[in-house]
């Protein structure tokens, strides 16, 4: 009896790089992540790899972020979990001959999970871009070269897929008993998206920068074979083939500028383009085909394309220094890439406005501290516009707020 061949494919919702929302270090969070032109050292490992080369000494950044997801669906708590995680970054400049080189790494470790794959039934209203957005690890190794007024940097944003070479369960009769044994050979291959940046200081008071990061996603490709050889009962193969795509992180290009209005005040602006239109399907896409003597074939369900649209995100920030104290503020408008939900899907999303502020203290070198140490704090508020989506039949509403807090310290060696 040949009893099952199953094909299954799942695509979990799309999420951007969690650090794009949370910020890498409290300084970035406090300026609405508008730091592409001014980030240096460890912070720049995520923000702009070229800035890593602008570190004068080895740096270590340790930070912790928290996001309180107060999102609602139909005026009730949407159940989006709060996010928290640890940021670790370092930058190591090395002078060889007349070259000022540097290497660095940016890491984000979510508090509970390194990654989380979550999908809900297609028609169920859900915050497609928030459900697990902050629940994935970020690993970004970079290297950079400084040429004085110009610096360039390159690296990669890494994620691990899951692919099986063998994943087998054998069910058979041994003596008068039926037993099963399993064997597997599964790899977690690393996928890399390029991440490059350039920094240029055309004048003493002006800094310009640009970055580009390629598209990234976590793919799962697993083939589970169940082989049954039980004489008189069941004999045949069951093959489960799984293909899934999750944590879609769109291609992203950023242009940024910073103006040092005075020796104490710097104003920054970033504008980012994100290619969300490349997302194939933003919904849980499950297809099942069964050829089973024990049951009638079950037809597959095809999901419509996501049809997300590209978005442009402006961010601005300001930092004012007085002595050891730094005061920061920022704002951003974050449009939604999700199209009107008139069909089978019910993606909740909407344009967000972001306002942030923060403060930092630089502990100067002294008798105990040999190099300056920064301690920074940031608070942020994202407001997700309340929207009512009319469907035929029914309707759903969405909206809410996200409160952010970030604390970090940068230690120089």
């Amino acid at each position, binding site marked *: 009896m040949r009893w099952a061949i*199953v094909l*299954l494919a799942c695509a*979990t919702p799309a999420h951007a790089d969690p650090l794009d929302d949370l910020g890498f270090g409290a300084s970035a969070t406090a300026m609405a992540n508008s730091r592409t032109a001014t980030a240096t050292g460890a912070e720049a490992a995520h923000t702009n790899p070229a800035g890593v080369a602008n570190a004068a000494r080895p740096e*270590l950044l340790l930070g912790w972020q928290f996001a309180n997801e107060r999102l609602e669906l139909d005026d009730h708590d949407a159940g989006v979990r709060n996010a928290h995680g640890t940021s*670790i970054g370092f930058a190591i400049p*090395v002078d060889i001959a007349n070259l000022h080189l540097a*290497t660095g790494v940016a890491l984000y470790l*979510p508090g509970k*999970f*390194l990654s*989380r*794959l*979550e*999908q809900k*039934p*297609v028609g169920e209203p859900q915050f497609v871009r928030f459900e697990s957005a902050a629940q994935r*690890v970020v690993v970004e190794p970079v290297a950079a070269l400084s040429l004085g007024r110009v610096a360039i940097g390159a690296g990669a944003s890494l994620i691990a897929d*899951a692919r*099986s070479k063998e*994943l*087998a*369960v054998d069910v058979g009769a*041994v*003596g008068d*008993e*039926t*037993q*099963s*044994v*399993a*064997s*597997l*050979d*599964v*790899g*977690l*291959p*690393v996928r890399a998206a390029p991440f490059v940046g350039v920094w240029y200081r055309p004048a003493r008071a002006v800094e310009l920068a640009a970055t580009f990061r390629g598209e990234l996603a976590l793919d799962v490709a*697993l083939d*589970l074979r169940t082989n*049954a050889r*039980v004489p008189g*009962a*069941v004999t045949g193969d069951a093959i*489960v083939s*799984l293909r899934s795509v999750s944590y879609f992180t769109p291609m992203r290009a950023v242009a940024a500028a910073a103006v040092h209005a005075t020796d104490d005040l710097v104003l920054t602006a970033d504008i980012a383009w994100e290619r969300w239109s490349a997302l194939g399907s933003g919904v*849980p896409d*499950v297809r*099942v085909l069964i050829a089973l003597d*024990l*049951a009638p074939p*079950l037809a597959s*369900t095809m999901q419509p394309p996501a049809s997300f649209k590209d978005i442009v995100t402006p961010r601005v920030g300001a930092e004012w220094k007085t002595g050891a104290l730094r005061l920061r503020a920022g704002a951003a408008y974050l449009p939604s890439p999700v199209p009107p939900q008139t069909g089978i899907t019910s993606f909740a999303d909407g344009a967000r406005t972001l306002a942030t502020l923060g403060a930092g203290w630089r502990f100067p070198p*002294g*008798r*105990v*501290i*040999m190099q300056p140490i920064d301690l920074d704090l940031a608070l942020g508020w994202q407001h997700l516009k309340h929207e009512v989506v009319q469907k035929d039949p029914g309707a759903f509403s969405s909206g809410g707020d996200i409160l952010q807090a970030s604390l970090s310290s940068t*230690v120089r*060696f």
Partner: protein
Amino acid sequence: MGVCRYFALAILVATATAHANPIEVFGLTSRRAGQANSGVAAADDASALYYDPAGLVARGGGELVLGTLAAYSHLSINASRASLSDPIGFQIGVRAHVPLGGALADRIAVGLGLHLLPTLAARVIAPAPDAAFYPYYGDRLSRIVVLPGAAARITDAFSVGAALNVLAGFGGTITATDDAMGGIDARVDEQQSTVARLIAGIRYTLSPSFSLGAVYRQRFEIPVQATAHTMVAGEAIDVDVRAAGSFTPHQFFAGVAYTTDALVASLDLGYARWSDYAGPYVTVVSQLPVVGAVPGESPLVPFEDTFTVRAGLESAGDGLVFRGGYGLETAAVPRSQSGVTNLLDGTKHIAAFGMGYVWKRIRVDAHLQLQLVSTRKVSKELYDGTGEYDPFTSLRDEDANLDGTQISNPGYPSMKSGGEVVSGGVTLGVSL
């Protein structure tokens, strides 16, 4: 709908049975690998993150270390060669003193050690119970290793340090039901969770020439359980999976180092509690249509605690430096396996040689290491029907309806193992 349960099951299994780490097998940096992985009391650079984290603060300054490692297996399974799963790796180590002055000057250091693979974060190979398999090597090279750590000098002579061995586990649930339209409503919630275990060490400097060190490495494993209850057109397909992967036993190593202007000598003794290990197998218990409940208990293998002695010698100073070492490690796999399992192992003799060149802030080191696994022969016994059947101690006829004894176990009637594993690498270090 049961098929989505298989999705969860597949991922759970996939991430469940990675074994220890490649640093344990082949060392961290060419300096240590070239001394047969010895150096509990001698490691004073970024390699101390594994050998004894207290060593992070043993020397001033800091360094960035970049290295590569490759290995080749000449281990045999009867007449065949057992290859290594991922024989090439890259190593990165960073160590720096926290820039404090006064009474805290040069007393606190931090570091990060990484072993990375060219294309993989991890690869997991969990064999069927009758597969011939070297569990000591197996997929031990197929895993990245992340070791952040710190150390503090409590007194001029006494230091303590700790590092974390960080990896990921996987778990969660999947629910899928067929809807009225004949499609599927799937609900998935799977998580990769962080797993971190302790490596703790102490270092005591008896005199400028003698140092003592000790390190404890906490048992590391990822217990996984997945239970799936599914229904396909009224037929139940239930699967229960249990596994304990990424196993590293409790380890305790103690060492002594002797230092002169011309050389550094080290001697380590170690103990690893392998007897806690339940084995590399995946246990599956399932409920299938028509068949009903299907047990899938794996054989219980009585792993044995291992003992290790390692010695290393390294010339000191700038310019050309030489080093070498020898190690001996007993086998964790029991010698007698007369039943289903074919786990291969043997006493390991480790011989290593290395050299390097030190110039100002830069040093380059290279090494070669030979691990000689002693020859063993595993012979099978047939179940005579007396007492309760134990799959570890004997094999039984697989089809009593046929004449003669029907046995498909690849180790029947016997299997011979042993051989060599050669590894080598190069490390570049820059003082910070």
